[in-house]
């Protein structure tokens, strides 16, 4: 699917991929493009490193939606027909908000928020970042009135970490696991701890031996106080999962041309497909292009490089000599050598990227949009940079 259509037709676009490939920046650029073209757009990032805040020039995004001032668009010369909002997710605060919102009573709310286990768990529990992102996504999708939400995801090695987060966390909170584990303790709370301790056996008493009794007691208190919230959590988790599988949700896989990163992308892609999630487009970011950008696609670039046999050191020496002679300036020879060597190095990088990218293209299904973005000579951390990135994202496709 072409990126233009994606931004026009979808209600949710999920940007996923491994760390360090520029996912957050791409998400911000796509959101800017969608907003410019008239959609009321929200970009939601869950990266704890505040990258989007940097990229959008909003120093603190907090855990609330901020509207990006239209003057930022004007200053960068981008006509704005829609609106852009941004939010950086704070896992702990989202969790706290949900507890406050859905706890059946104030006592229970305070018991949860004050529980030592909850305080340790709420932002470190495996999958809780991803899960809270899903909760927030659902809430904003249902209540925010946005035409499009662009979601930047935490860097996970496995697409599953992200997709299964609702299940995994429900496994934990929903009681299946923990309630079975701590059931004797829950009962002990009612019939008396000492009675229970005498009867404690099996896995439990062993775990107690290793972790210490208090830990399990705190855990059982936590589970008990969470009882009234399970059903709501489970319902929302189910709806979020359904939402991700809908026609209106698109996935964009972002990657970079290094071999290991691309292998992760292929793995990621296959996992998404196996889970019946549609990957609509793949973006390869930070690609070294051959000088002159003469060839748009990696296959023709690679062929071109193979035919232009690389300049050997001897030929570089001879050519540099000819260049210095032509200018009548012997001192130019060393500069010329550097020029030639540098070109060869660039071509080596471009050829290497092109070969890596071809490996990625193989497994991609028909109809998956594919865009290569060159390594830019600037840092993308402001609107001008994001606009330049968009020029490449959308122009590359047009060619």
């Amino acid at each position, binding site marked *: 699917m072409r990126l233009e259509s994606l931004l026009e037709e979808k209600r949710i676009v999920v940007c996923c991929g491994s760390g360090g490939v520029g996912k957050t920046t791409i998400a911000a650029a796509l959101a800017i493009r969608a907003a410019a073209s008239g959609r009321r757009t929200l970009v939601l990032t869950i990266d704890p490193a505040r990258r989007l805040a940097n990229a959008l020039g909003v120093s603190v995004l907090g855990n609330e939606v901020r509207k990006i001032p239209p003057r930022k668009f004007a200053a960068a010369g981008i006509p704005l027909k829609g609106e852009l909002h941004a939010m950086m997710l704070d896992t702990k605060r989202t969790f706290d908000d949900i507890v406050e919102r859905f706890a059946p009573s104030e006592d229970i709310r305070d018991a949860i928020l004050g529980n030592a286990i909850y305080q340790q768990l709420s932002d470190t529990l495996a999958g809780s970042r991803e899960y809270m992102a899903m909760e927030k996504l659902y809430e904003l999708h249902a209540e925010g009135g946005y035409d499009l939400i662009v979601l930047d995801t935490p860097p996970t090695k496995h697409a599953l970490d992200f997709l299964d987060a609702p299940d995994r966390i429900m496994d934990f909170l929903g009681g299946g696991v923990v309630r079975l584990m701590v059931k004797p303790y829950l009962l002990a709370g009612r019939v008396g701890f000492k009675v229970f301790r005498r009867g404690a056996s099996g896995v439990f008493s062993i775990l107690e031996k290793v972790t210490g009794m208090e830990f399990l007691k705190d855990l059982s208190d936590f589970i008990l106080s969470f009882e009234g919230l399970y059903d709501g959590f489970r319902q929302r988790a189910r709806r979020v999962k359904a939402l991700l599988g809908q026609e209106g949700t698109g996935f964009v896989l972002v990657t970079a041309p290094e071999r290991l990163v691309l292998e992760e992308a292929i793995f990621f892609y296959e996992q998404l497909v196996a889970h019946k999630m549609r990957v609509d487009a793949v973006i390869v970011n930070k690609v070294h292009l051959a000088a002159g950008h003469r060839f748009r696609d990696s296959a023709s670039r690679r062929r071109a490089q193979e035919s232009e046999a690389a300049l050997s050191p001897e030929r570089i020496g001879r050519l540099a000599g000819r260049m210095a002679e032509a200018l009548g300036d012997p001192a130019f020879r060393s500069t010329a050598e550097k020029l030639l060597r540098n070109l060869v190095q660039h071509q080596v*990088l471009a050829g290497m990227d092109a070969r890596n990218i071809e490996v990625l293209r193989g497994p991609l299904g028909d109809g998956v949009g594919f865009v290569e973005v060159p390594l830019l000579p600037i840092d993308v951390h402001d609107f001008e940079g994001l606009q330049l990135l968009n020029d490449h994202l959308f122009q590359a496709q047009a060619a």
Partner: protein
Amino acid sequence: MAASLLDMRLLLVTGKGGVGKTTVCASLALQAAKRGKRVLLVEVAPREHFTRLLGAPEGGHTEHPVAENVWALNLDPVLALEEYLQTQLHVRAVVRMIMGNPVFRRLVNVAPGWRDLITLGKVWHLERQQDPRTGRPKYDIFIVDAPATGQGLGFLRTPQAFVEAVRFGPAKTHSEWVRDLIEDPARTRLILVTLPEELPVNETIEMARALRERIRVPFEHVVVNAVAPKLFTDREAKELRALGEDRDRSSLLASALGDDARLEDLLGAADAAMSRRALHEHHLRRLRAHLGRPARGGAANQAAKTLIELPFIYRSSLSIDDLRGLGEILETGGKGPSGAT
């Protein structure tokens, strides 16, 4: 004066995803081995990057040789947990009963922090092991490829978090032992790896602040990876700019080149290299300004940081010799003859 990295027992290498932590770990390992040390490289499964980088067969959750005097361990936290329970419970059948319990396995899937703790715990355990014949430590130095930042600081905070969460019992004591190892300035150093780019540098500055304020793991070194070398002198840069606008000289050069290369490609590539270098210099200056401040308290975490620059290497995959070269630079802090400064 920063302590020499290779004199440590434990190096924890961390940084944002994609900055080259694995390269730095492997280079340090080769350099330590060159100094006669026995090295164990530790990464956390399911990665298996060291063996690939060093061209050795995959070894999984067992210590296996990957280069002369270098071993690698692709630590599987679940297996490490099993080993830990074995040391605590002694009876294999009991451990198997726990590990095989479906409820326990599902708990293990979601419970936070324990993977980090058990990873560090395993390193702690190995750090105490000796060669029974010689009485020497089994390994002289442990180099851990720690999870990417975001989670990276959490990794370092886990032992203390456990000490606080578990009020007593063996797990608390063991967490304290692990914490004491990673916070020991005589044995441990944390190394932050970054790239000379906007966002990685921002994150490194943030992490350094968090380390100063909240985490007591000794930290003195920041490694800036893949720095574009300064190719052209300022005079040459000026000359090349002038050349682009000088039609006569340009056409002389173009005819000298003939079909071998196009002048505009040469100048374009030179321009790209120079803007890249300028960009990298800018970010190196930012890092220096933030991390180069002199000591306030004198403790390791307060002191000015040593910035080590590793040059960008124009190759599709790094060779062992490339890694050895980087290892030299890492040991000398970039001040040696092969330094990239």
